[in-house]
């Protein structure tokens, strides 16, 4: 393998057959099969490179442009999701993995990492990731916050009574009101997010919770669920969703590749 490090995507010679740089979507078992007609970045055909117990899911790397367009991200995820959809367990690569050619994928990725990939694949076999997001129904919860904190209610009432032409003078009061509300929401979400997780955790083999992106979010967590337990899990989510529907909107995303359940290093 000649070192091509540093070569720009645009200026290399036209690769011969099988020599094109390979983009790596993920790793699956050697005996896995791809969905018919699977395509990846720029519609390039997806193929498997098998070595030992594992196979890399790859396509030719698009040439002459940097990666990272919206369509690239969608293509990356689409390849993995198509495999998941057929019940194939696949370890996703983070966006942007590429090697110099098919031989390099075999020698430098599968030959050295294959054993470890195999262990992770064993551990995740027949399991999918489902991601739960929940956010407050804003008006309902803001009312609760106001009702639950006299200081907030008082400041809010005072700000309402300020005429429009004096509104700028109350700027810092508005900021303070918002800050108090934000803190009250934070407290709520810490407690309620935890409760939601505890309700659903028994149906999953593992849970990874992350700090929700927005202040009005309650929960953002990924669950590792056995394929044969998925229906029951989704039913639990639906029941929980109904129970909290007037205050919290739940959204379930997946099945996803097990991004959150690949052990670090």
């Amino acid at each position, binding site marked *: 393998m000649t070192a091509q490090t540093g070569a720009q995507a645009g200026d290399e010679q036209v690769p011969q057959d099988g020599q094109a740089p390979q983009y790596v979507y993920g790793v699956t078992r050697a005996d896995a099969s791809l969905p018919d007609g699977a395509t990846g970045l720029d519609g390039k055909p997806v193929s498997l490179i098998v070595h030992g117990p594992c196979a890399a899911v790859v396509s030719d790397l698009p040439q002459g442009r940097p990666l990272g367009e919206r369509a690239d*991200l969608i293509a990356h995820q*689409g390849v993995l999701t198509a495999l998941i959809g057929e019940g194939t367990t696949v370890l996703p690569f983070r966006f942007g993995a590429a090697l110099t050619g098919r031989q390099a994928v075999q020698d430098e990725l599968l030959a050295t990492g294959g054993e470890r990939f195999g262990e992770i694949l064993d551990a995740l076999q027949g399991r999918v990731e489902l991601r739960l997001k929940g956010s407050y129904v804003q008006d309902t919860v803001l009312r609760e916050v106001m009702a639950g904190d006299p200081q907030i209610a008082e400041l809010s009432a005072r700000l309402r009574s300020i005429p429009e032409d004096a509104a700028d003078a109350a700027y810092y009061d508005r900021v303070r009101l918002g800050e108090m509300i934000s803190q009250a929401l934070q407290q709520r979400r810490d407690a309620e997010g935890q409760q939601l997780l505890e309700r659903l955790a028994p149906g999953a083999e593992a849970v990874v919770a992350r700090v929700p992106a927005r202040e009005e979010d309650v929960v953002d967590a990924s669950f590792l669920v056995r394929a044969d337990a998925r229906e029951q899990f*989704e039913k639990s989510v639906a029941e929980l969703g109904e129970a909290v529907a007037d205050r919290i909107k739940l959204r379930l995303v997946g099945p996803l590749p097990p991004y959150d359940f690949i052990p670090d290093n």
Partner: protein
Amino acid sequence: MSGPIAQQTSGSNTVQRGGSGGGLADVIDLILEKGLVIDLYARVSLVGIEILTIDVRIVVASVDTYLRFAEAVNRLDIAHDGTSQGLPQFLGDAQESGAKKKTRGALEGAQERLKETFGSGDDDDKDDEKKTPARRRSRKEDDE
């Protein structure tokens, strides 16, 4: 590959499913921040590919978040608490429009940056759901 990027499975009425309306926004942090990384396992001859730098997190300054909350409680219909009806409510609405201009400016600024990054509007649910109904609908087609 033309399927939705986050698959939809059987749903319920109250729990929204990610496949239909979620799209890239629901998984982009996973795609970019999670998953196996090649250089952990092999000293690779990395192709000299260039990855666009993407920061998907919309950072809205805290003050703008606070103002957004202040605006939201101000907008609440609080007729039922008996303290504010009629004129004060009207004044509240007028006052809100002033605050909204500032807040909206910040949010749209963030969205503009996303648009530059993704080409088309990646109007995910991070902020203003109500403001962009048309684009939310059209996004589904983008994703497929």
